[in-house]
């Protein structure tokens, strides 16, 4: 394997393979976003480059290259409609890097390609900042650095292991500098010019309308919605109701947020328990909502309260943000304004006649809202209702169809039907859309709330109790609440191939791997992606530095740089001193022996080996011959022998010590 690799790299295409491999790997994720033709063009040109190493005729002539370049630019313009901006810019850079190799003459041009490959890597980070992207690109950076090393050292250093080792040494030594600069380099909120900002579109997640089937579609997605780290004891997952949107308006089938009050209506919540504090890290979703454990007691800086006790962001969410929040699980909400009451009772003029008549029966037979409420709950508890992820389709009178025909549905069917019934019976009610539960990550001590935790439930106004949460799912399918909808997705079994135990083991392993991966992602988010202006300020404050003004922050940077340069210089100096060649003990002893012989007139000639010298000296001084031969033999055996013996240095020392000619 290794020799095969060496053979490939030592061929005439070797240098180009070194240059093009990191370039190709860096370009690969770009190709997933750029137009199809661009990736094909780049790869074609690179292959042409490799083919042309041994067949120089294949290199296009200069006019042809210019024509190609013009074609590429117009192609990018045709695909994007503009040229200035990160995306067409990246496309142009890719094409430049595809054409450049064809006109390369030597070191300088190859260096430009290698340097621009780094830029290509950076441009990928503009599109994806995930840990996966960073890890992948770290590998590409490593390869590219090895290429850069090889450019200087030429063919003689073609050995890939050697190059990679040198690149690894350089990169490891660069890590402290990277950390220092990353922490100290001043960050400021906002961008430099605000130029080239790409417009964000709404991403996945909850939308402001709810049709039957909407939420169950979300439950197929394991995508992360937000993460929550509790301060102190975390509440049980069955009590984690994350309120996101409140749906007031319905046409009997679809529920909408409607024209909710834009006012900053502060609500009146009486907490009956200690508030729960937590830090919520929200993934960007391009919308205004901010989830909160019911009921939120404090409002973060960049959010505002809406009258229906949910939080609204002041600007659409474009990047991952952390919120410090507090909520009460036991609460009492007071005061229902007349306007709200009217909205909470509004129903379409017609439709769902069966349901309406059922509600009117309750209203005429039972006294009081509480009794009607209980009767409605009893109706769902009678056992004929089923909980399913794949309910049958419903007709135009969706509530009637569901309550009296199919009786099979998912959370939004129950929330929708129950709210409808309550309104028809004259009890104010609304649908709440949000997330329920959370998956605990033991590796990071936090909860992950994914899209498949999306949920819908009802809230009913009962005088004296205020808004009361009614979640029929918790009554009909308590396991959904306990373990989350994700677990309900049917497993694709492989009968007869793997035993149940093996499957269980594989699932556990997979689960642990994914948990570990998510914990790493959370750390990455927390320590790298969120390290902005605010975090840096807090970091400085924790060190006892104010870090308020720009000047100060640049000062810290300069101080840190100067200090580390000094430290690096010192370390280097100490290493140099320690690496100074020290005379070998063996050579020192032999030199002393020679010096003693020289004192009596027997001087070792420059061209005389130890054996020749010993023979000559023995002949001159027959009385000393034994010692001279012994010393020389020990020295020669130790110095040139295949197997140096232990203790010979000591022996030589004794001999030389006693040698007094």
């Amino acid at each position, binding site marked *: 394997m290794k020799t095969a690799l060496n053979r490939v790299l030592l061929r005439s295409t070797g240098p180009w393979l070194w240059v093009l491999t990191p370039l190709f790997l860096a370009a690969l994720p770009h190709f997933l976003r750029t137009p199809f033709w661009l990736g094909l063009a780049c790869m074609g040109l690179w292959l042409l480059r490799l083919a042309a190493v041994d067949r120089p005729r294949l290199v296009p002539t200069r006019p042809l290259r210019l024509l190609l370049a013009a074609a590429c630019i117009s192609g990018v313009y045709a695909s994007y409609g503009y040229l200035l901006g990160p995306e067409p810019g990246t496309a142009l850079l890719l094409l430049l890097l595809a054409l450049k190799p064809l006109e390369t003459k030597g070191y300088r041009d190859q260096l430009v390609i290698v340097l621009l490959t780094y830029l290509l890597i950076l441009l990928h*980070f*503009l599109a994806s*900042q995930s840990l996966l992207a960073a890890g992948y690109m770290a590998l590409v950076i490593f390869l590219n650095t090895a290429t850069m090393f090889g450019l200087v050292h030429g063919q003689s250093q073609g050995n890939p292991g050697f190059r990679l080792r040198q690149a690894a040494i*350089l990169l490891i*030594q660069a*890590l402290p*500098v990277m950390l220092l600069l990353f922490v100290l380099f001043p960050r400021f909120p906002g961008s430099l010019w605000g130029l080239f900002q790409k417009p964000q579109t709404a991403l996945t997640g909850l939308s402001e309308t709810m049709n039957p089937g909407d939420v169950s579609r979300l439950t197929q997605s394991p995508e992360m919605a937000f993460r929550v780290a509790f301060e102190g004891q975390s509440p049980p997952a069955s009590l984690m109701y994350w309120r996101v949107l409140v749906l007031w308006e319905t046409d009997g089938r679809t529920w909408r947020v409607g024209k909710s009050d834009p006012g900053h209506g502060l609500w009146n919540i009486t907490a009956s328990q200690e508030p729960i504090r937590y830090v919520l890290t929200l993934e960007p979703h391009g919308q205004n909502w901010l989830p909160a454990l019911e009921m939120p007691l404090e409002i973060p800086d960049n959010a505002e309260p809406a009258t229906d006790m949910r939080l609204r962001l002041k600007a659409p969410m474009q990047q991952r943000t952390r919120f410090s929040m507090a909520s009460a699980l036991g609460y009492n909400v007071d005061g229902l304004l007349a306007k709200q009451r009217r909205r909470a009772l509004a129903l379409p003029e017609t439709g769902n006649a069966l349901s309406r008549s059922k509600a009117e029966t309750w209203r005429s037979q039972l006294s009081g809202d509480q009794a009607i409420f209980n009767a409605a709950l009893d109706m769902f508890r009678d056992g004929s209702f089923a909980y399913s992820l794949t309910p049958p389709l419903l007709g135009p009178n969706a509530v009637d169809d569901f309550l009296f025909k199919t009786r099979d549905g998912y959370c939004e069917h129950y929330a929708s039907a129950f709210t409808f019934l309550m309104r028809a019976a004259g009890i104010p009610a609304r649908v709440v859309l949000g997330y329920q539960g959370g998956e605990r990550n033991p590796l990071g001590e936090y909860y992950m709330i994914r899209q498949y935790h999306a949920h819908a439930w009802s809230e009913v106004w009962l005088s004296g109790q205020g808004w009361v949460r009614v979640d029929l799912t918790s009554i009909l399918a308590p396991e959904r609440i306990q373990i989350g909808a994700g677990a309900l997705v049917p497993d694709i079994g492989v009968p007869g191939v793997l035993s149940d135990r093996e499957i269980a083991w594989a699932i556990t392993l997979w689960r642990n791997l994914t948990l570990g991966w998510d914990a790493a992602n959370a750390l990455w988010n927390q320590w790298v992606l969120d390290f902005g202006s605010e975090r840096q300020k807090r970091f400085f404050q924790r060190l006892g530095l104010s870090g308020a003004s720009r000047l100060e922050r640049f000062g810290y940077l300069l101080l840190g740089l100067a200090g580390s340069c000094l430290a690096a210089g010192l370390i280097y100096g100490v290493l*140099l001193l320690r690496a100074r060649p020290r005379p070998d003990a063996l050579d020192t002893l032999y030199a002393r022996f020679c010096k003693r012989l020289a004192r009596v007139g027997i001087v070792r000639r420059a061209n005389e080996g130890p054996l020749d010298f010993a023979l000559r000296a023995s002949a001159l001084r027959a009385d000393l011959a034994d010692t001279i031969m012994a010393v020389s033999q020990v020295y020669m055996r130790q110095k040139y022998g295949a197997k140096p013996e232990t203790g010979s240095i000591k022996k030589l020392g004794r001999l030389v010590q006693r040698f007094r000619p």
Partner: protein
Amino acid sequence: MFLLGMPAVYRFFKHLASPPKKARKQVRLGFNRIYILPTKAGLLFFALLLTMLLISINYTNPPGYLLTFLLTGVGLASIFHTHRALFGLLVSRAPTRSVFAGKTAHFQVVIRNPDPLFRHGIRITWSGLDQGPIQDIASKSEARFSLPKLAVARGKLTAGPIVVSSVHPLGLCKAWASVQLAMSCIVYPQPEKNGPKWSPSAKVSADLSKILLESYPAEQDGDDFSGLRKYRLGDPPRQVAWKAMAKSNTLYSKEFSSQGEDTVIWLQWKDANQAEIEATLSRLCRWILEADKTGHPYGLILPNQEISPTTGPAHLDLCLTSLAVFQDHPENP
């Protein structure tokens, strides 16, 4: 990178102002000799870092910052590696082969690496030039570099200052040390293309030698009298050609050859004498080379020097060297 480069820039200019160092046999490259400056590639790399930093700031991109700062660290670390590539090397010289004028002399520079560290891409150039041989030097070993220089005129060609440099590991900066080694090369005169052959005469005029041959019949242990040469201090009195002295007022010594068949070639300044000294030397040079090819012993007589006849490469070198370093003397005939 530039922050670290500044002291080097300062020392560089100081270095330019200082008088050239004395030529030495061996030079150790230490802190006081090694200078570092970014190369063109380094400047390009710096421009790239700036671009990447601006992009990272504009898009508030943390992985972008990480990448930019990682590459900054690589650049900084490479400065130390570059310095270490030269530090501690011992630069010395080996004898240079003599050449004829108009040919290229190859100066031999020996660089010894006394450390266990492998040295990459050590380049040697003449001061002021870019090109030169480049070699790796393994740990505790040495490498020999050959530096060509055109030998224009005969005489002693002294090597100018040489520059030992390296751009290891990434070519972003270049460390160099200027070294003046005591290194020279003998340049023989350019041999004449064609011209007359040397005169077969002995070194004394024909008539005189005839008299002498008559006056000194075979004697001296049966050795044949083969000619006369100028008296040298230490010649025994019985060897002095008294009769010749009486005729010419100069002391001559008689020479005898024990093997009669040997032809001794005498190459004399006065036979080759031309209007120009250099032309004379060129002719003598050709004669020496031709005489060397005949295999007979040959001797050389210059106005201020005489080399007794013999053969062999050492003799050839001695003769040519005496031509190379010939100084025009006032008593030149």
